[in-house]
């Protein structure tokens, strides 16, 4: 009986739902017509973004509030450079925002971006964080750090990336996939400094020391340390801030010490998030206005506070947490040069079977 009653209820529900679906279908029609003709606001700027919206939306909001210029975004993890390339000169996009240097290099190669000649950008961004030909500009910096367990690695913690390949750390290291952008960039920097063969030995050494098959993001590696699965991990600096902001994850963050690698020699490896003006850029003036705004004190301090990255603008202080880690020296080799070794680095990961 109960089953019959449920069935009757369900068929009632079905009628209601089908009317609802019909209505939403009508609504979809309205939405479709509205969107089919792409609205081009007189005062707007359009962005293709590889960066996650929750990081940049607060900055866009304050830009709109100050200038009245509407900011429209499409966020995707891949394919935006290809979309720009296909759309060609009619592309509605003005700015490409990227989450790492690899995306910027791909955009340069695909010839979908144009140079910006702006004194404001020059004065705010140090030379090593922008393209010599003004094709792209860095916005934030992240240091690639070594995280070690407070309780189990009090002594004898590694002090350089090279240390990670030493046999004494066998079975102690956790990292994300060797094919992930951040790992590839680190390997590329090792290639740039030490040459391909030495880099291969290094990566194979790190691989031998892994406690588990590479998996998860940087945050997951810290979690693994806090749970005793491993003792050492390689992470981007801002993940610490993200974990300390989360109730559950605070405990993970508190279980580790941070090491700024290679302070005795070339300095810590850095990666940037950046921006570029697209080749089509229908709203060029607005776009440049936004690009300059993104490097302003206000925007840079939002970056610093929301995501605990290092602002590229030297006048802006990092967040309190990041400042508490102190000064450090970073690898000053140009990113453009490191980027040339990306493909080699990715192949090295295959050769040593890093992810297997």
């Amino acid at each position, binding site marked *: 009986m109960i*089953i019959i009653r449920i*069935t009757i209820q*369900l*068929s009632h*529900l*079905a009628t209601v*739902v089908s009317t609802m*679906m019909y209505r*939403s*279908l009508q*609504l*979809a*029609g309205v*939405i*479709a017509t509205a*969107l*089919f003709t*792409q609205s081009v606001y007189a005062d707007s700027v*359009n962005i293709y973004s590889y960066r*996650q919206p*929750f990081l940049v939306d607060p900055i866009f909001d304050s830009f709109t509030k100050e200038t009245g210029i509407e900011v*429209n*975004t*499409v966020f*995707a*993890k*891949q*394919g*935006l450079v*290809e*979309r720009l390339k*296909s*759309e*060609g*000169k*009619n592309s*509605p996009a003005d700015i490409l925002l990227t989450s790492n240097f*690899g995306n910027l290099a*791909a955009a340069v190669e695909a010839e979908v971006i144009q140079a910006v000649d702006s004194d404001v950008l020059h004065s705010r961004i140090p030379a090593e964080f922008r393209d010599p030909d003004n094709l792209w500009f860095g916005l934030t910096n992240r240091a690639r750090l070594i995280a070690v367990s407070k309780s189990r690695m009090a002594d004898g913690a590694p002090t350089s990336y090279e240390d990670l390949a030493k046999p004494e750390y066998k079975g102690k290291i956790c990292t994300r*996939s060797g*094919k992930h*952008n951040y790992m590839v960039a680190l390997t590329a920097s090792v290639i740039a400094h030490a040459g391909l063969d030495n880099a291969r030995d290094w990566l194979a050494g790190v691989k031998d020391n892994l406690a588990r098959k590479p*998996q*998860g*993001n940087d*945050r997951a590696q810290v979690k*693994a340390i*806090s*749970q*005793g*699965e491993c003792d050492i991990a390689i992470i981007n600096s801002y993940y610490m801030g*993200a974990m300390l902001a989360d109730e559950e994850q605070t405990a993970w963050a508190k279980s580790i010490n941070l090491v700024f690698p290679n302070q005795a020699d070339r300095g810590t490896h850095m990666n940037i998030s950046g921006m570029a003006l697209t080749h089509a850029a229908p709203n060029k003036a607005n776009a440049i206005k936004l690009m300059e705004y993104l490097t302003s004190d206000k925007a840079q301090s939002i970056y610093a506070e929301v995501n605990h990255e290092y602002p590229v603008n030297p006048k802006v202080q990092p967040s309190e947490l990041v400042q508490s880690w102190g000064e450090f020296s970073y690898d000053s080799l140009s990113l453009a040069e490191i980027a040339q070794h*990306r*493909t080699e680095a*990715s*192949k090295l990961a*295959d050769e040593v*079977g890093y*992810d*297997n």
Partner: protein
Amino acid sequence: MSNTDQSGKRLLTTASYGGGLTFEGDDARVSESATAIPQRRLSGWSFAALVVAAIVCLPLISVVWLAFFPEENIWPHLFNTVLSTYVINTLVLMVGVATGTLLIGVSCAWLVTHHDFPGRAFFNWALLLPFAVPAYVIAYVYTDLLEYAGPVQTTLRSLFGWQLASDYYFPSIRTLPGAICMMILVLYPYVYLLARAAFLEQSASIAEASRSLGVSRRARIFKVALPMARPAIVVGLSLVMMETLNDYGTVDYFAVPTLTAGLYDIWLGMNNLGGGAQIATLLLIFVMVLIGLEKSSRRNQQNYQPSASRFRASSRTRLTKSKSVAACLTCFIPVLLGFIVPAWILGGYTITYLDESLNQDFKKSALHSIGLSSVAAIAAVGIGILLSYSKRLHPTRNMKFSVGVASLGYAVPGAVLAIGVIIPFAAFDNTVDAIAERFFGISTGLLLSGTVFALVFAYTVRFLAMAYGSINSSMKKISPHMDDAARSLGHSPGTILRKVHLPLIRSGILTAALVVFVDCMKELPATLVLRPFNFDTLATQVYQFASDELIGQSAIYALLIVLVGLVPVILLSVRIDRSGELSTQAAPSETTRQRIILPTG
């Protein structure tokens, strides 16, 4: 109606050969030539079908075209390093998922259609529930549950006093077997759905005939019911295989290097889109070979269902107590693991993070998801009907080939297909723009690129295989004598489609619409790349959080996808049952009869 009587008789006689339910040799040729319509009268249908097929093929052609322009030759490197790993992992994954979904899907479908046990009516539709759970979501959920830091292992550690990972053995979820299990759990409903529909469509008279001829119960399953349901099961299975091949979310999250993971790595990691497209093309060829092999293995087989007036539903066998328990468990475990556990965990997170999540505008994303999915479902079903009916009218080699290629979109990973959509759309837009500028001095800009139309198109291309497969397997079961009879009365193919075929394949159409709708709700990679400015769907919202392992914040959107996906699942499964029962009453109801019988002249 003598023709249909004959077909019924033939089914009876062929059944006596122990499962050779075939229209062999001469018969097939006779019926084919009779169904095929003289070219000059109906070139409209084949023309329309060929044009639509060509348009649908455009993204695939783009992908293959890209494959000719790699940045560098990837094969020496792949061959020396990871190619064997990629291929072996891919094959193991496919075989594992295919076996698992086949076992669960077919056995559960057989249980609920032919047996009576407590909870049968519930499992009948509840077995479809995992279908609403996206594979990437179930992967997140089970990792959360089973990983070292998760509640299961933590409890075990505190129970037994273990300290470290090295103190005990626990299977790791982020492995190849883990990925196989995750995919089985959410993909088996494809096989279940199609197998169940096929079992329901089998008339009781066939079972009775084989029984009266002394065929054992076991042989009735393996020699009669399964071979008759085979085309439908194969459609389900090939959807499962294609879904497995194009999956990136799960294998990426579990770090299992498959060919698809390799494709993305070559495209994004080595900045070589052409090389990636070569792997995509390889996957396409692989699928084509697979489909070709299956087809040739049953080349001489064709099953027709008896006309509606002769159809009777099979009666269900009541199970004994112990067998009932076994049947219940068999049906319950997939529902528990594939739906209840993930929904429970997502529900928990949703409550924890409710305040935080409610700030987001998820009503809008839900409307976007529902609207897009509905439109795409209608488009895919419409094209599916056009293609399968045109193929029925003109079973020429050309037609078969173009229809076959048109339904390959499902085998291409989403983001790659999206690039395949962008290229022809942008080319069209830029050509129109150039012409307009040259002759009228105005710029039309981008007309189609970056609009919801591009999204609907991508969904249609991607999920056409499902719509077409379901509709075509239903349509194939209608005896060609039906067409002959109707045409001898002077009706046009359009009228025949409307009055004969569509009513008969209604459950196939509903199934198609359901599957496409739910899959569009879950679609992620193509949506991300193709969407217009400021446009979010539920899936993109889930992704934006989950990609940063903020599973708690993404839970509410994931749960919404599951819930919204559930509505049509329940709705349509109720209707499929009812339409099945309608046309199966011993004395066919007046409505059914009227629908079949055409007015003369």
